[in-house]
Structure formats: C-alpha cells, structure tokens
C-alpha cells in the first residue's frame, strides 16, 4: 500500500520537479537530447531574468490587486445580503431568494460575450473595473452565509436589540465576529477562485499592463524566441504563492474548499 502511495505521489510531483529542473538549466541545455536531469551550469539565472524583465511581477501585482479587491467586496456585500435575508423581512425578499438560486445556476461562461459587450458599452473594457466588478457576483456565497446566520440562535441577537442596538450594529459587532470561520471560508474560496480565474480576465482586458498572472503568462510572448528555462521559471514563480499559502494554512484552506 505504502509503495503504491509513494509511486502515485511521485507521478504527481514529477511534472513540477521537471519544470523546476528545466528552470534551473542554462537555456542551451533545455532542449538537449537525450534528456538529463543534470546539466552543467545549473543556476537561478532564469529566475533572475524573470525578475529583471518585470512583466511577471506586474501581472502578479495585478492578480493581487484584483484578488484582494474582489475578496473584500465579496465578503462585504455577501455578508450584508446574507444577514438581511436571514434576519429581516422586506417586500420582495422571496423574489431575491429565488433570484439567488437562479443565479447559482448561471454558468459564468455563458455571460462572457454579453458581458464584454456591456463593458464596451460602459467604456470599461480594458480597466481594472472590468476585471473586478463582474467577479464579485457570487450568489452561492450569499447562500452559504445565509445558512450560517440561520443557524445562529435568535436569542443572542434579541438581547442586543433590547439593549438598543440598531440592525447595522448587530450585524457589525455581533454577527460578523460570530461568523468569522464562515467568512474566512468565503474569503479564501473567493481569493483562490479569483487568483486562478482565467476566462473572464482573459476576455475583460487586452492591455498587457492590466493582465492578471494567468492571462499574461498565456498571452504575452517573449520577442527573443522561446526560452524554456525562463518561461518555466516564470510559471513556477507565479504558481508558487498559492501553494506556499496552502502549506501555511492547510487546515483553513481545506475547510474553505469543502464549503
């Protein structure tokens, strides 16, 4: 059993190890036949060139900006909405609930074409707004948080209301702290999804300066021809942050993704 597990893990790690190995080789050694895991002059030069070139860092910066903006906005608007739907009644509440369920059914892929047309119409194509705003609409997250708020005993809240706290106060200083684990799950899930999202950012921006990392890496070419070591170094450099985060926050991430 253990042998099987080790073999399977090795198969899964070899592609990454091979990418790293290539990134450490001098360019001239990358296409040598027969293939070898060792080459003269292995170094971190390719990574250095990626840093010096700057594109990858700029794309990672955009990914970070977009990821944080989408996550912050999503947590803010979905928790507000979930609280409102869980604890208050207003005219049209059932319509909103029905819309939520319907919205979960709409695959983002069917929206790319009209959304692009909308962005062009609004003059937002090729802006950070186009990258961020449509990614904030995650009805499933409202649903998850509403379920959580539904489970919070009403007595807690009523005590606070008796003390004269307004709805917003209750939401802010009572419910949000209680919901911290659920909010963390939503935040992590949103951030990971946004960080790795490809299709919409690929459609939303054409300007290489605005591209997120996955889009830039796939779209922009080196004008010096193919440099395998450098390209793989860039890929690893951009792929690593989330893997490192995973190592640091394994447990929380696992809960978030299960949610």
């Amino acid at each position, binding site marked *: *059993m253990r042998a099987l*597990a080790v073999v399977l893990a090795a198969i899964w790690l070899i592609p990454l190890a*091979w990418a790293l190995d290539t990134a450490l080789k001098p360019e001239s050694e990358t296409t040598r036949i027969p293939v070898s895991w060792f080459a003269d002059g292995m170094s971190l030069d390719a990574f250095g060139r990626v840093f010096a070139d700057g594109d990858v860092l700029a794309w990672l910066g955009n990914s970070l900006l977009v990821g944080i903006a989408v996550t912050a906005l999503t947590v803010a608007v979905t928790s507000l909405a979930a609280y409102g739907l869980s*604890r208050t009644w207003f005219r049209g509440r059932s319509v909103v609930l029905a819309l939520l369920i319907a919205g979960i059914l709409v695959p983002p892929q069917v929206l790319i074409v009209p959304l*692009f047309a*909308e962005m062009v119409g609004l003059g937002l194509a090729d802006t950070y707004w186009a990258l961020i*705003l449509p990614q904030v609409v995650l*009805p499933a997250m409202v649903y998850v948080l509403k379920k959580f708020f539904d489970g919070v005993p009403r007595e807690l809240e009523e005590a606070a209301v008796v003390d004269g706290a307004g709805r917003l106060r209750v939401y802010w200083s009572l419910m949000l702290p209680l919901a911290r684990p659920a909010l963390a799950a939503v935040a992590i899930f949103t951030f990971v999804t946004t960080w790795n999202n490809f299709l919409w950012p690929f459609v939303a921006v054409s300007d290489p300066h605005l591209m997120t990392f996955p889009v830039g890496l796939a779209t922009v070419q080196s004008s010096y021809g193919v440099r395998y070591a450098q390209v793989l170094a860039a890929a690893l450099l951009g792929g690593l942050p989330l*893997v490192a985060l995973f190592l640091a926050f394994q447990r929380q991430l696992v809960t978030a993704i299960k949610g």
Partner: protein
Amino acid sequence: MKRSGFWFVAPFLVLYVAFLIVPMVIGLGASVTDDGITGHARFVGAANYVELFGDPAVWSSLWHTLIFTVTSTPVIVLVGLGMALLANRMAPERWLYRLAFFAPYLLPVSVVVLIWNWLYQPGFGLINDALTRLGLHEVGWLSTDGMAMTSIVITTVWWTAGFGFLLYLAALQEIPRQLYEASALDGATPFQQLRRITLPLLSRTHQLVIVLQVLASLKVFDQIYLLSGQGGIPGVRSIVQYIYESGFTRFRIGYASAISYVFFALIAVVALVHFRLVKR
C-alpha cells in the same frame, strides 16, 4: 426597522443586476440581432438560432465537450478516491500526500498547460524521452485529434484530481473507527471493509464529486484552448471555446450570444435532472 432589511441586500443586488441580469438581457437581445464586435446591430429574428442548429461546428464542439466529460470524469473521481484511500492510511506523512496531490489544483491553468506542453514535446519532452528509453516509439501527444484529447484529459486529471481527493479524504476521516474495529473482529478482510463500509458511507461524497466534476467539464475552456496552441485544434474544440471564437475571433456577438443561450439551457437541464435525482 423591518424595512431596513432591504438596504442590507441592496449593494449585492445592485451588482447582481448590473453584472448578471443585465448581461443576460443583453445576451438575449443580441441573440436575435447580427450584432458585431463594434456594436451595429440589426434585428434578424431567429436567424442565429436557425443557423446554429445547422452549424456542424456547434454539434462537433458539443460532441467534443461530451467526450471530454465522459472520459475525464470517471478517471478524476477514481483517482481522487484512490488517492484519499491511500493517504488516509498513511498517518505520519499524510501532509506530504496532501501537498503532492492537491498542489496542482492550486496552480493557475496557464502554469499547468506550460508544464504539460513541455512534458509533451517531441524529442526533448520528458514523456517521449522515457518512451524512447523503453524502446517504444515517440507519441505525437498534441499532433492528432485523438491524441490531443487524450493529452488534454491526462493534463486535466493531474490538475484537478486533488479536488476530489480532498473531499474524499475529509469524508473518510469522518467514518468512525469503531465500524472497522467491529468488522475486523468479525473477520472481515480490508477489501471487504472497503466494499461494505467505506464505499457505501462515501455515497454522498461520490454524488457531490461527480456532479461538480460533470458540471465543470461541460464548461471546459481553459486547458483545451491553451493546449491547442495558436492555430487551435478544431478536433478538440469545446462548446465554450466555440462561443469564445464566434464572439471574439469572428466578431459575431449576436451569434455567440445565441449559442450561449442554447448552452445555458443544456446546463440548466443537467442541473435540474440532478435536483430531481437528489430529491428521490
């Protein structure tokens, strides 16, 4: 005070309307026009819908999407389950398996495709090199339609099996140990335990993993588009890819919107069938 409830929902609702409802309406409107990429639309009635039902590229890309779904889903589910069963037993180094099996899932698709494109290269590609060393012939991983689909499925399995793995691992850890201890006293072999205890108790997870996987596979675009390279490989084009190409490569926003709507209807049917099955 009760009326204030609406204001909690309002910010989300504004975004929901602006970036979900409005594009749905724009798409429906565009689908009955000849709207192009620069937006000079004329009403054409049902012409786009008539055209798409007779467009061989629509049918072939639906077919490729189906092939991708039915070939990749079982493999991904079984590999994820196998990984979880193996890793669950190996308590001391479980974190290592978690890392190995789950790390690929955290990589952006373009990184995954770059790495696999590199592995699939002729001559200096690691896989073809290994084949040559074993005295076998090189395989043109991306050069024929059939092989390209196989390569796409392999890449997808490597990339996403970790998701099912994680769900299965979590479910396995919730199975009480006593069940196994009791059955061991009755003389059950590990294989019998797997069949009689583990797999039945995982049935909800099976369902979840399969449904999520099927829905994700039907919407596949990224890895097929990127692995196909600059010219694209018409023999593996997915339906979402055809929507993308119709809209942005051939500049036909109206036609692409019509295909989007038909595709949406298909996805909705799959999701509703699933709901019906779950209710039973």
